């Protein structure tokens, strides 16, 4: 009995002595949450998000903190892994909002996490900016949820128009993942836009597969036989190289066109020369960029060793938007609920924000009005600006 009592007291005292931060006063720290897929299906996306966020934090720290209304506040990033799973993204958001008291959240990137996570952010009245989610329901009827990119209903027609004007084709094939929200949505929008232009039946092959499939030969054989002139495949970086090389093996000679999900640095790493000369629509083009965009790309490449993809650039813009909104509030009260509301109002008011992925102004729904870029993969494997299309 005594032994136990003594042990407890000793343990307690040591703990007290060593808690070096004891008696430190609580101060207002601006916390920004990052909800990213660091593990799971698309870790490269998570990595880009994290790196861009760390670069942003570096800038803030160099400036000695974030200045709001004449007072400098310390800034902290809370980076949470959503494992590329919906319920994990919900947990991460709940944790960041209720436990870490974040002022705003950047992420999640994919729509399948951003849609349920947005519900949580909206419920707790916390600003969430999803840099990359293109599903309309992410921001629909949610005043606290914003996004940093254009939507599928805009991107689909952009690609359809580009193919028509560039090549003059009339017959297209589509290959997409039926089990994944983003490719499926975009495939549908593209088909609709294409058929509006070229009449019903002009999408001669509309083939699907399921997430984690690696053999597309049966679908591609059908596409090759269908007489399509162009193949549109809105897939992620892990599938694009497989689709492209398998299509070439099966005798496909026409162009293959993709969407912004191709924009990862990994696509060209895995695909190699097979992908040279192909086109995709995206948010920005790394090769031949100017001004702030170029500065960002150079700095990112110098620090992390590769050219940033669109996810990193969009995350950077989302963080800068959050920063702008926080500064626009003019004053932080230290009461988190009030500050969150002020940040939301300030964010909705932002006009012509000059981001590295283009100028942005938010609509009522929290979606930005911005231009899409057509990127060509050149013969050095770089993503080169080819043209742009604005709403």
């Amino acid at each position, binding site marked *: *009995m005594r*032994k*136990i009592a003594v042990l*407890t007291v000793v*343990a*307690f005292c*040591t*703990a*007290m*002595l*060593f*808690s*070096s*931060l*004891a*008696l*430190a006063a*609580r101060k207002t720290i601006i916390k920004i949450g990052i909800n990213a897929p*660091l*593990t799971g299906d698309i870790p490269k996306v998570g990595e880009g998000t994290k790196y861009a966020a760390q670069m942003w934090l570096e800038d803030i720290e160099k400036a000695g903190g974030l200045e709001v209304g004449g007072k400098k506040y310390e800034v902290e990033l809370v980076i*949470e*892994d959503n494992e590329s*799973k*919906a*319920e994990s993204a*919900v*947990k991460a958001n*709940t*944790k960041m*909002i*209720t*436990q870490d*008291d974040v002022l705003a959240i950047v992420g999640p990137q994919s729509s*399948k996490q951003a*849609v*349920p996570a947005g*519900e949580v952010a909206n419920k*707790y009245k916390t600003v969430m900016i999803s840099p990359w989610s293109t*599903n309309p*329901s992410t921001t629909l009827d949610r005043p606290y949820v914003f996004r940093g990119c254009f939507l599928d209903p805009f991107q689909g027609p952009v690609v359809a128009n580009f193919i028509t004007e560039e090549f003059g084709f009339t017959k297209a094939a589509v290959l997409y993942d*039926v*089990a*994944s*929200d983003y490719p*499926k*949505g975009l495939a549908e929008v593209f088909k609709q836009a294409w058929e509006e232009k070229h009449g019903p039946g002009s999408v001669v092959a509309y083939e699907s597969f*399921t*997430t984690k499939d690696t053999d597309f030969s049966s679908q591609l054989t059908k596409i090759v036989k269908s007489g399509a002139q162009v193949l549109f495949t809105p897939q992620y970086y892990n599938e694009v190289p497989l689709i492209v090389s398998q299509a070439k093996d099966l005798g496909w000679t026409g162009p293959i066109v993709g969407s912004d999900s191709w924009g990862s640095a990994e696509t060209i790493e895995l695909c190699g020369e097979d992908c040279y000369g192909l086109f995709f629509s995206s948010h920005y083009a790394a090769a031949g960029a100017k001004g702030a965009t170029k500065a960002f790309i150079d700095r990112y490449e110098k620090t992390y060793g590769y050219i940033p993809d669109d996810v990193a650039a969009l995350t950077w813009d989302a963080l800068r938007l959050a920063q702008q909104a926080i500064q626009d509030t003019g004053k932080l009260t230290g009461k988190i609920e009030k500050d969150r509301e002020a940040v939301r109002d300030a964010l909705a008011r932002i006009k012509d924000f000059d981001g590295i992925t283009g100028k942005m102004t938010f609509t009522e729904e929290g979606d930005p009005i911005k231009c899409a870029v057509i990127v060509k993969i050149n013969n050095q494997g770089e993503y080169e600006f080819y043209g742009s299309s604005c709403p």
Partner: protein
Amino acid sequence: MGIVKKFQQMFSTVPMLGWFLGILTAVLIEYFWGYDYISYYLGLPKIPVLFGALIMLKEPLMIPGALAYDLIVYVIPVLAVAKLTSPFTNQGAALLEKLPLWLSAVLHLVFLYAVLHLWAGINDYRVLIVKLTLISIILTVSINVINGYQGEFSCSHPGFMALGAYVSSILTLVLFTNDKIFGTALLPPALAPYCFPIVLVIGGAAAAVGSLAVAIPSFRTRGDYLAIISLAFMFIVKSAIENLHIIGGARGMGGQPDLAPLPVIFIWTTLCIWIIHNFVTSIFGKALNTVRDDEAAAESMTIKTRKTKMTAFMFGAFWAGVAGGLFAHVLTYINPGMFSINRLAEILAMVYFGGLNSIVGSIVGAVSINVLGEALRPLELFKWIIIPLILIFVMIFRPYGLISFTEINTKKLLEAKKHKTKQGVSS
């Protein structure tokens, strides 16, 4: 070793009621002084949410503070109150013993819920974790009926869960919400909480009917064949939902009303545990075990093996459906990708980690995998090395799981512990 034994002896006189009282004190201390005083003076930014696990892994400097917090708020009050009040709580427990067992159990459960509610209420993140853990308990206990008591290897639990989740979501969306897909609400939304149990039961029933699709063709076979058929069933359900555009397809279905607050889930979980406990300890459960151990012998003892297996399978599927319905209404969003191979791995890990053929084991498995998964969150990728490693070690040293082949003895659990010390015998 000596200390551990002494420790055990010292607290062997504390009845369940005493532990509850101790935990209640700890929770009250946290509730009233946790944020303003204790965590403040220890230099913690906030009340540590999962006993400080998250903050300790993120900032090693906080380890002493978090440990001190755990000591001050949890360990010392729980032990001290439990020990000091044991004369009174034993009297109380003795009084409760005179009541019918069910009443005493219900009273204890109410007490348990009160403590849980207070603890979780401090932070909504805790509430969410507790909710998802309770749902995991339903899933694990129900798959234990099939994989443990029945001795089969079924892989279709995520499929049953999906059926339950989708059916109940469609019902609540059609009946109680103004939805884009299904139009205006048919019934006033105020009725929703009262009709929710019926909705859940219908969801469960849908899963049970779906399970017949696995049961009828496969119970002529055993072992691996059932595993393959049930795995196929899971993929069929997932693909079917993905291709049904009316319910959202791969894009998922959102906007369910939030009908599953903590008390509702707690009641369903206790109901599930109670009913499954009665099921497996009944004659039917014994028959199920017999069928598992030797089908031919069971048949010769006049057990209808086929009917036994089918009933148990449908029963397990029913609860998986209920769990799916609750899950859908906690997240208020579902997509078919949630009910895939990842979920299966999680459920199987929970049941085999905890222990086959044991409800206590299932609860332990579900709670530990869930809490570990959350507590190790800051480790990111390494989390996925540590948890599987723990599983591997459990499988090597305890092939049937941590607590297997043991049953709850409610009476013994709740009884007063006074007389033991008088006899001076420690068990």
